[in-house]
Every structure is written in C-alpha cells, then in structure tokens.
C-alpha cells in the first residue's frame, strides 16, 4: 500500500513537472537562425546575429509575438551549402514557425526546397536572382534580389557615371555569378560594352593579378561584385596599384564592414545600396545608433536584414492570428508592412508571391571613410 502511494505521488509529481515544462516550452517559441558564423561569410553572419539579438530582445520586452516569447537559436553553416542543408533538415524536425537564413545564396539554393516541402517560411539574406525563381512559396527576402537591384545600378552607370565601357569583376559562387548574369545583359541593353568579365574565387586573398588585368582592360569604370572580405582586399589592392577609374558596386562594395576593413582604400567607391544605416530615414538611423551603442561598431546591410527578419515574422503572425508556419507564410505573401503599423520594419516593404521584396533604395558613395547617400530611389511598384 505504502509503495503504491509513493509510486502514485511520484507519478503525479513527474506529470506536473512535465506539464509545467511543456507549458514553459509552449510559451517560448524557438526560431532557428541557420547562418554563416564561420568561413568566408563570418562577417555577414555576425552582423545578422547581433542585430537579430537586438530585435528579439525588443520584441520579448513588449510581450513577444502573440503573447509568446521568442528564442533565437544560432546554428553555424560554416559558409558551406552542405552543412546548411543538414542544419535546415535537423531544424525542420522540430517544426519551427519559421527559419532564418542562410544569408549566402549558395546555401539558400541548397536549402530552399526543404523548407518549401515542409511548408515553413524561410527568411533569407541571399540576393542571387534565381532564389525566387525556383517556385518556392515559402522563401522571403530581406534584401533585393539581383534581378531588382542590377537594373538600378545599370541605370546609374549609364546616366550618372556615363561609362561607355566597363570591366566586371565577380565572385565565382551563386551570389557572384547571379549578379554577373543579372548585370551584364542590363549593361548591354543600355549600350555599355563589357570589355573585361573576370571571375575571382570565394575566400581569395591575393587580388594583385586581378587588379593588373582590370587595369589592362582600360575600361571607363569597374563594377566589383564580391562579398565583404574579398571586396575589402580588392579595394586595398586597387589603391596599391593606383587604379584611378570609378569603382562601382551593389551594396556589398559600399557596406560598412568593407569600409571598416579597407579604410581609406574604400574612399571613392560608389553605387547602389539596398539598405544602409546612413539612409535618410529616421527609423533606420535610430537603429544604427542603437546598434553602434551596443556593439561598438556600425551595422551594415546584413545587420538591418537580421533585424527586420524578426519584425517580418511578427507582422505576418499578427496578421494570420496564429503562430503556425503555413499561416505565417500565407500572410507574408503579398503583404506590405509599414513603419506606422510595425516600427521595427524600419522602411515600408512589400513582398510579392515569389517572396521578392520591394522597398525604396539608395545611391551612395564612400567619402572620408563614411557611406554618404546621394539619392533615394522609389519602390518599383
């Protein structure tokens, strides 16, 4: 009798503990961030991680999303698509409401079919044009695809730089090849001749030969489309070799991380930026100040992407009325989020049926170690 009583009491206690821990678990919603925290993309992932940490603290301080606190789990892809795929597969086993990342387009390419099959929204940092062209209804960008940004920079090269010939330097990965394949037809459509079309390797450290080749092409301008560390190394080498032609880029070349690494070698770089903490928008500048106060360095576009990702899911979940992945994705498709309704989105943004984002963007130049916005370009629609 006594033994039965003990067993009964023990079971009741275990049950209560389990129930309470389940209840605790139910009050905390985990969102995996499968991003580049080492390898070539470490710089990018670190920015995303820091900014998303800020966003989740803000959201949780105000009660979370639909009354639930959010916990971000960070998983390192090592900038490797194979590892990213394995990490996404493991994360999907836990049936998350959404997945953030990867940021590198190659890793997004390797993972987008998995999230589509699992009907789980995947909020990415990748910019390769083909990501939203593969039919996934569950992929959502935080920055422009190259199919949107490259026409804008091509117009700038034709109208402002007035270059008749151009050298294109791109990175030999999904991001770089996608950019190259997007910009070259746009340049040719505008009567700008591509006189050099050069690929470089991800993680490449020595750009001496590439800069010599680019100089030898004698183009009116040089379009550089590399990721952050490679952009900085290229700019350092270009300055060392006395390159005096305009160096033009799309977001990464003018990014804050590149400016921090290349210092005065970055001066004079110009082009189109989708996101910048120097944008003439109060909410964006305020985010930039808060980020810098906390992390002692300026945020770049990857930081803004990581920050708004949380607010995208928040707005979509609130529209759907539930924390359910398919409902969130359905709500996010075709959604326009305004700062008036959701201040954390910073700039009004809209998503189409393919997950492509539309937003204002900017032309900028690096002067005296700072990115200076020279023009604001309107939304496409």
């Amino acid at each position: 009798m006594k033994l039965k009583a003990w067993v009964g009491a023990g079971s009741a206690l275990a049950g209560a503990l389990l129930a309470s821990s389940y209840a605790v678990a139910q009050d905390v919603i985990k969102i995996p961030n499968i991003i580049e925290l080492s390898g070539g993309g470490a710089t990018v992932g670190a920015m995303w991680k820091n900014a998303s940490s800020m966003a989740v603290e803000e959201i949780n301080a105000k009660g979370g999303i639909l009354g639930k606190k959010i916990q971000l789990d960070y998983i390192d892809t090592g900038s490797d698509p194979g590892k990213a795929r394995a990490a996404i597969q493991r994360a999907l086993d836990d049936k998350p409401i959404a997945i953030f990342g990867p940021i590198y387009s190659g890793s997004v390419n390797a993972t987008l079919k998995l999230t589509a099959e699992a009907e789980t929204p995947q909020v990415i940092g990748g910019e390769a044009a083909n990501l939203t062209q593969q039919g996934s209804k569950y992929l959502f960008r935080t920055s422009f695809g190259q199919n949107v940004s490259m026409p804008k920079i091509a117009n700038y090269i034709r109208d402002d730089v007035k270059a008749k010939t151009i050298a294109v330097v791109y990175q030999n990965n999904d991001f770089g090849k996608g950019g190259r394949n997007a910009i070259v037809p746009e340049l040719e459509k505008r009567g700008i001749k591509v006189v050099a079309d050069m690929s470089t390797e991800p993680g490449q450290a020595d750009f001496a030969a590439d800069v010599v080749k680019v100089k030898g092409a004698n183009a009116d301008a040089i379009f550089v489309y590399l990721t952050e560390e490679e952009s900085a190394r290229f700019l350092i080498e270009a300055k060392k070799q006395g390159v005096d032609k305009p160096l033009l880029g799309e977001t990464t070349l003018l990014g804050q991380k590149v400016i921090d690494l290349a210092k005065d070698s970055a001066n004079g770089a110009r082009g189109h930026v989708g996101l910048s903490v120097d944008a003439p928008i109060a909410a964006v500048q305020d985010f930039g100040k808060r980020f810098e106060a906390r992390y002692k360095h300026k945020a770049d576009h990857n930081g803004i992407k990581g920050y708004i990702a949380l607010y995208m899911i928040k707005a979509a979940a609130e529209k759907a009325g539930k924390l359910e992945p398919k409902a969130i994705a359905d709500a996010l498709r075709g959604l326009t989020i305004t700062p008036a309704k959701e201040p954390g989105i910073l700039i009004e943004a809209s998503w189409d049926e393919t997950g492509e984002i539309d937003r204002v963007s900017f032309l900028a130049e690096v002067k005296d170690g700072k990115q200076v916005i020279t023009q604001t370009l309107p939304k496409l629609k």
Partner: protein
Amino acid sequence: MTDFVQLIISGLATGAIYALAAIGFTLLWQTSQTINFAQGEFVMLPAFFALAGMTALGLPFSLAALFAVACSLAVLGFAFKFLIVDPLIGQKGTLPLVISTIAVALLLKDGAKEFYSAEGQRFPTILPNDVVAIFGLKISLDQIGVLVIAVATIALLQWFLAGTRTGRQMQATAQNPTVARILGVNVERMILLTFLINAGLAAIASLLISPIYLVKFSNGEVLGLTAFVAAIVGGFNQVRGAIAGGLLVGVLDNLAAAYVSSRYRLAVPLLLLVVIILFRPQGLLGRKEERSV
C-alpha cells in the same frame, strides 16, 4: 608589356613572403627532420598576437609587432619544440610527428577562430601606401617595401648561417648531427635555435602578408600549401632552394591568375610540383640525397 612587368613585381613581393615560410620548412627539416604541416598556421598566428597586443593591451602597432614576434618565439619556437617535437622525435619514423603537426595546425586555426574571431580583421601596415610611376609602371611603395624587408631578412639569415660561428654550427648539425656532436657542437641548442629562427621568420612573414590578406584564421591553409610547394620545388634540403621556390611560386601564381584563370591559379604551382617530383625530385637547387639500407 607593362601588365606583365607589374605581375612579375607583385609576384616577387608575394613570393618573397612565401620564401620566408618555405625557408622555415627547409631549416626545420634539415636540422631536426621535422616536416611541419602547421607552417601555414605559424604564419597566420603572429598577426593575431599583434591584434591582441593592440586591442587587449592597448599597445601601439610598433610595440604590438614586437610583442607578436616575442609571442611567436615563445609559442611557435619554444613551446612547439619542447611540447610537440621533443617527445616525438625519437619515435619510429616521422609519421607520429607529421600527424602531430597536422593536429597543431587544426588547434591553432580553431583556437584563433574561437578565442579571437571568425571574421576577417584589418591589419595595419608600416609601409607607405603611395604609388610611384617608374618607366610607365605604377608600383606601390608597399610592394617595394615588402620585397626589401623580405630580401633583407633572407640576406641577414644567409649571413648568419654562413658568416657566423653559430650559423656554421647550425649547418654542421644539419649535415650530420652525430659528427657535429663529436666535434663539440651543442646539437640540442642548434636545433632549438632553428625552431626559434623558424618562429621569427613566420612572424615577419605574418606582419608582411596580413595587411594584404587581412587577418583571418583560415589564412594558414593556402599559405601553408604554397610554402610547402615552394620548398619542394626549390629544394627541400637547401635554403637557397626555398628562396628560389618561393619567388618562382609567387610569380607563377600571379601569371596563372592573370593569363589562365583565378580559378586555376593554385593548379599551376601544383602542376610544377608534380613535374619537379617526377623529373627532379631534389628540387631545382636541391642536392640529391641517398640512403643506404
């Protein structure tokens, strides 16, 4: 033509840095039969010591560079020799030591990533960034400075080895440690000195290459492979071979990137390695070695 000449000059500048690392490989092999597969990481790490000196200790760059050299001598010289090499050098064959150096390479690489940062870091340069025009070529004073410093270091080392008593004792140890011991050379001290010289060369190479490559935990992978190729191509048993190999690989790497493709730039030195091993295994300037069994 000007492009070609500029490629040669920048190739020589980078090649001189490869030569510093390759000389270290060669010296360690000659005096202690150590093949150090962590050589690339030995070149990667001193830059992190310098950054730590600047950020954690608040040192100005010049003092941080000296701090980096001192840490390199301590960690990559003394500690490496006493903790890794000495316990394993008496073992059967060189395989245990080779495997250990591979493990050291992984440890140093992941250590830098975990304890400092996975992101690339800017590294200051003491050399001027100005560009000068010479016979229609735009040459960076930075490149000339790298070449001058690397060549001066090599020249100093050559003078030390050939022109000083200690240097000649080191050479004697490399040629035949048994006979050197009989003749009164303190062989153990000469071996230690070799490890310290290797650590010093790695530190200088690191301070020269990090402003170009940025400071990153993964820098050692390519540097180590290139230095190894340079040492084999030049001649693993001759310091002058390592110098020639380093310069040749630096120039070839640049020419391959410019005239073949960036994608295959490493393939050309590796092809050269295969050709040398097949047709001249002692290297371009190396000495044929024979073993009796």
